[in-house]
């Protein structure tokens, strides 16, 4: 098998006494879509935070393409190819939709430190940004101020920013939460496309089982911060740990009976 694109070795973080991520060792390969599941508070978002550098690890290492990036800053990791969308919508609220995406494209193009040219002179960046908005079907809203978007559209924009960044590692944290059934497929199709691009790795945190079933190549389960299972979807979904801790054994039918 080829060398993994991203690995975490014994990655650990403690908040006071609480071990939120507990020595997680895992490798992710190009062209693979891994779903990360686990109960609320299992440490999924925190695991993402450690990979993208938002919080420093208490112990352990993160390597990208064989390079140790454990101590690198968030922006350095982003430039190196780690990109993520956030679970809690996290945008530039007073700027327009287009400007949000344009800023990402501009960062990607490395033109941020251009002090003496006019923004309007960089028409190519604007075109790129509009392309991406078209892909997530937000083009019509491009001149709207972000804080005035509905929740669902903000979630879409969150995804658009990540796509604009076009990193090696895509990390989605519950991308479709709060998206209506007719909107969610737009985003899910985009994710499926990414997977098809064989040189990218996608990590997906998601609670909707149907989504995981259709998209995931592999599932890892976090439980109380530790890696509890890792393997092919069908096998992992059937495992005790998932059935008990995640789906809630004895509760499967509840929804149908209340």
């Amino acid at each position, binding site marked *: 098998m080829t060398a993994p694109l991203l690995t975490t070795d014994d990655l650990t973080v403690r*908040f006071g006494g609480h071990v939120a991520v507990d020595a997680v060792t895992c490798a992710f390969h190009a062209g693979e879509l891994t779903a990360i*599941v*686990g*109960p*609320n*508070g*299992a*440490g*999924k*978002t*925190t695991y993402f935070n450690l990979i993208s550098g938002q919080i420093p690890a208490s112990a352990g290492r993160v390597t990208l393409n064989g390079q140790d990036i454990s101590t690198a800053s968030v922006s350095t990791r982003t430039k190196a190819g780690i990109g993520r969308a956030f*679970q*809690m919508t996290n945008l530039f609220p007073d700027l327009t939709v287009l400007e949000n995406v344009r800023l990402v494209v501009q960062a990607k193009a490395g033109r941020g430190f251009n002090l003496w040219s006019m923004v309007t002179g960089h028409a190519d960046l604007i075109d790129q940004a509009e392309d991406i908005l078209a892909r997530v079907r937000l083009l019509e809203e491009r001149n709207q101020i972000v804080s*005035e*978007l*509905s*929740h*669902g*559209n903000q979630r879409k924009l969150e995804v658009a920013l990540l796509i604009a960044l076009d990193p090696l590692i895509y990390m989605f*944290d*519950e991308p479709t*939460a*709060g*998206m*209506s*059934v*007719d*909107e*969610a*497929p737009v985003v899910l199709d985009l994710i499926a496309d990414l997977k098809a691009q064989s040189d990218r790795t996608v990590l997906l945190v998601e*609670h*909707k*089982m*149907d989504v995981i079933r259709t998209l995931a190549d592999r599932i890892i389960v976090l439980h109380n911060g530790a890696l509890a299972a890792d393997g092919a979807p069908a096998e992992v979904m059937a495992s005790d740990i998932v059935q008990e*801790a*995640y*789906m*809630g054994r004895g*509760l*499967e039918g*509840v*929804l*149908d*009976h*209340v």
Partner: protein
Amino acid sequence: MSDLAQTGTTGDPILRIEGIYTNIAQYHILQGVDLHVPRGGVTMLLGRNGVGKTTTLRSVIGHWRAHRGRILFDGDDITRIPTANIARAGLGFVPEDMGIFADLTVEENMVLAAVSGPIDPARLDWIFQAFPPLKTFWTSEAGNLSGGQKQMLSIARAMIEERKLYLIDEPTKGLAPAIISTMARALKDLKDQGASILMVEQNFAVAKALGDTANVMDDGRVIWSGEMAELAGDPTLQERLMGLSMEAK
């Protein structure tokens, strides 16, 4: 649309929204919403993103103000009274963004939510059963909770005291299946205690399982209302109203 009266529950509705129009800045968001929430049942409010579901709930609690139309709660006109008074009249609210006080601990969030006095320990136990992490993180800052834990806290806050009507905006987003089930249980308990619930939900499975009546919105209006079972049993209707294409679980 007027077949609401025959939805199986008795008496006049606890909440009547009569033709409200709500603007946000220069945008006309709600354009004549009519909605009745019967006493003692779960009423679902469904629809695609951006059609005005959240705006409707916010108009009820008074965060946005309807400039036309009336909102009657338990027979009283609450269209223009201050939010705090609306809440004290017996409304519990779970906002879409959860409205967690991030710098307060879980405990402090709950203490605040118990408006009329100290927390009732029995009720708290009941909440802990539904949402165990709240017990574990009782003294942590709420801002540090995981996404799902925040959602639990938000719902728990609304449930800490008995309310006549709960307004709940997308409670299941970000919750693991096991928790969704227990939450559904908790909401059912509420209903059994005689409370009424008006709930926005994108997860159709949950809507189907919990809802007694349903209302579908589009473009700032309610375009369909009726029994939840009727909607659940009619895929073409779903397709027409909400663009549902994926098979509901």
